[in-house]
């Protein structure tokens, strides 16, 4: 197949349209704006609809309305925008609406800056909105995966009637790489529950309210069963040189690319090092971490944050072996040399 050199952000839109998405609601923000721009350019060409919403809140609620109608639809933003969308995300989870939400993370907190960061892990993976809910969160590390995981996200969202998230960073969004685009999805899943424009089922309703505690608890139990099925079926990770490793580094998104270089360089010097890259941040590959912990000496986690995913690594490891952490904040991306120095330093300690 022919490859196309393309920005990660643009690959998301092409992947989404190939997956059958025809509705995009968004608000401009760096470093995610190319997603809105590509959606505005391509959606009218394929008979779709792009709306530049008046706010992030409007965008997620337009998406809520569109998803209620049974179509594949999406939004995208970057960190401060995701904070604003959290209300709508919680409603979508409560009302069981499938949709795809993309967060191209930037430096924070507050207005921060537009450089790449990974400090939205807690916000997006742990449920930044109110109430208890879960979403499959996928973390691409290449332009190819920006396309592929977006397509997968639509499938997962539809399968479970639940929002699904692409959690990327500024570099993966802005970077251009060759992408082989898959064939389009020709037929979309039927949604018997959706609000249609004709022959309304008399009881068709999209809602997250239930005043009766026992009834709302039943709804929550149903959601938890759904999350358990998602957890059982959608763990994704990639191992690199872990077979004989004594030290395994863990990172997602652009960090995993840098760690790939770290592993190559240290392997060249005879260090038994490997890389484990979570692709699904929820469900987190905890069982795989438990397996690794039984045969290696230490984990070394790198994030573009104060250390958020590392908590999940530590929960899985449960104190069995050391879990070391190195993070840079505010949009600073560490070099392979810098990480190698930290790995060596912590080995001596």
């Amino acid at each position, binding site marked *: *197949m*022919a490859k*196309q*050199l393309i920005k990660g952000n643009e690959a998301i839109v*092409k992947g989404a*349209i*190939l997956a*059958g998405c*025809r*509705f995009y*609601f968004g608000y401009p923000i*760096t470093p995610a704006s190319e997603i809105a721009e590509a959606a505005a350019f391509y959606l009218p060409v*394929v008979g779709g609809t792009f709306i530049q*919403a*008046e706010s992030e*809140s*409007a*965008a997620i*609620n*337009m*998406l*809520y*309305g*569109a*998803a*209620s*109608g049974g179509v594949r*639809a999406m939004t995208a933003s970057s960190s401060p925008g995701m904070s604003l969308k959290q*209300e*709508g995300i919680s*409603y979508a989870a409560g009302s069981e609406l499938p949709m795809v939400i993309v967060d191209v993370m930037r430096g924070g907190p507050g207005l921060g*800056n*537009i*450089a790449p960061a990974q400090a939205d892990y807690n916000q997006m993976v742990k449920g930044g909105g109110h109430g208890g809910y879960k979403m499959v969160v996928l973390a691409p590390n290449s332009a190819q995966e920006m396309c592929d995981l977006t397509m997968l996200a639509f499938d997962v969202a539809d399968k479970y009637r639940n929002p699904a998230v692409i959690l990327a960073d500024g*570099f993966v969004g*802005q*970077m*251009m*790489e060759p992408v082989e*685009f898959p064939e*389009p999805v020709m037929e979309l899943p039927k949604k018997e529950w959706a609000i249609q*424009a*004709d*022959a*309304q089922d*008399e009881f*068709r*309703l*999209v*809602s*997250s309210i239930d*005043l*009766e505690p026992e009834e709302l608890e039943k709804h929550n139990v149903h959601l938890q069963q759904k999350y358990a099925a998602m957890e059982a079926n959608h763990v994704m990770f990639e191992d690199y040189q872990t077979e004989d490793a004594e030290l395994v580094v863990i990172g997602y998104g652009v960090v995993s*690319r*840098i760690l*790939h*270089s770290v592993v190559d360089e240290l392997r060249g010097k005879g260090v038994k090092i490997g890389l484990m890259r979570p692709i699904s941040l929820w469900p987190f590959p905890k069982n795989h971490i438990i397996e690794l912990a039984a045969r290696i000496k230490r984990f070394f986690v790198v994030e573009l944050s104060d250390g958020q995913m590392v908590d999940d690594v530590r929960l899985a490891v449960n104190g069995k072996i050391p879990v070391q952490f190195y993070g840079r904040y505010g949009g600073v*991306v560490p*070099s*392979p040399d810098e990480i190698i120095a930290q790995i060596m330093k912590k080995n001596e300690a």
Partner: protein
Amino acid sequence: MANALIKADSFYELYERKSGIQDVTHYCPGCGHGVLHKLIAEAIDDFGIRERTILISPVGCSVFAYYYFRVGNIQAAHGRAPAVSTGIKRVHPESIVISYQGDGDLAAIGGNHIIQAANRGENITVFFVNNAIYGMTGGQMAPTTLAGQKTTTSPYGRNVNSEGYPLKVCELLSSLEAPVYIERVALTDPKNTTKVRRAVRKALQNQIDNKGFSLVEVLSVCPSNWKMTPVQSKQWLVDNMIPQFPLGVFRDKTAEIPNRETIRNTFDQSGVREKLEIPANEKQVQYSLQPKMDFANPKLVIAGFGGQGVLILGLGIAQAAMQAGYNVSWLPSYGPEMRGGTANCNVNISRERVGSPLVTKPTVLIAMNLPSLEKFDSKVEANGLIIYDTSLINKQPTRQDVHVLGIPATQMADELGNTRIANMVILGAFIAYTAVLNKEVVFDALPNFIKRKNLLPLNESAIIRGMEYVLNKVTN
């Protein structure tokens, strides 16, 4: 025509979604919601649109409107009903979407949403119930609360000096171009109620005819929170609310806007790859390339002023390398930097999988101005290559352990008649010096990164000039 004594077909026979008694509503005695619900349900019946009506229930007393209306129902977050309406209406343009909202919902937390939906001219119908108070939460101050009116959060009366004046939604929205129909009515006596009935029908008919945005503000009583009997509260509405919120038509373009056909959405994936400009599958062309030893898997930093074509140079190298079968990545500096000032990009070209897209130790530095040379000079790997534009940089790189190639690229570009193709002169020099790529693949790639096709010959000339410069220099 609906019989006033017979329940509308657009209501459920029994309110099964409601707990407790299922043949009466949850609304308080005397409340206006019940009457307005009835007028809407009868209109839906009479227009024969029940099966395609979608009601957006807000947050507020009418949050449970879906208990009653036998239509498609979506419950929305507080204030967001116009955005939710927009989403579903755009998906199903043939549906009839009703955004039913109270004053706290529409005029406070959702103020921007209603303004913007109205301004977009969304083809929806909004019924806005104004009772000057938050009902569901127990009688707090609303944007529409009257001056001096006591509520649980304005216990000493609304003070206009600190809490402002009652918000007049119809007046506000009628300053916009797009809305088709805006009217304020009141649920008081039978005469006024007839006007409400007429307004409800007109606002729905406009949507059926695809004319655009219609909003009916309905002044309504809240006996429970006003702490009055239903009869007293109706009098209070007449005496106090109507003077503040005058009744009448604020906008009516119904007659001048023609009825429009409904354009339904259809899902069609045929030809989608072409529409997305995804390249067709072509046979991979084999290029004979023998990169010089030091440049087998080069990592480039390309830097200069914004406007020198630094990013497009990197893109061109990446595009050609991809077509030559390499793995590649291109990473720009982005954001404020790309709006003037300096620009740089990182390019990886490799026969192996590309690790970090970020190049911190380049094997090739292309510097198109002095600040770039000074910034990245020391970072180049030993035995690497520095290419710099001697027409703009009057200083030599300090490194002794790297290849250095100075080329008067800007001067050569000027000689070709366009300063902006200095980047292509450099591209020629890069491929001639390193042999990572050759002329054939770069020329094949050129149309994929130079969008203006009439400039292709000029770019080709510049590349050839750059190559010749290097080959002459090496020969001499």
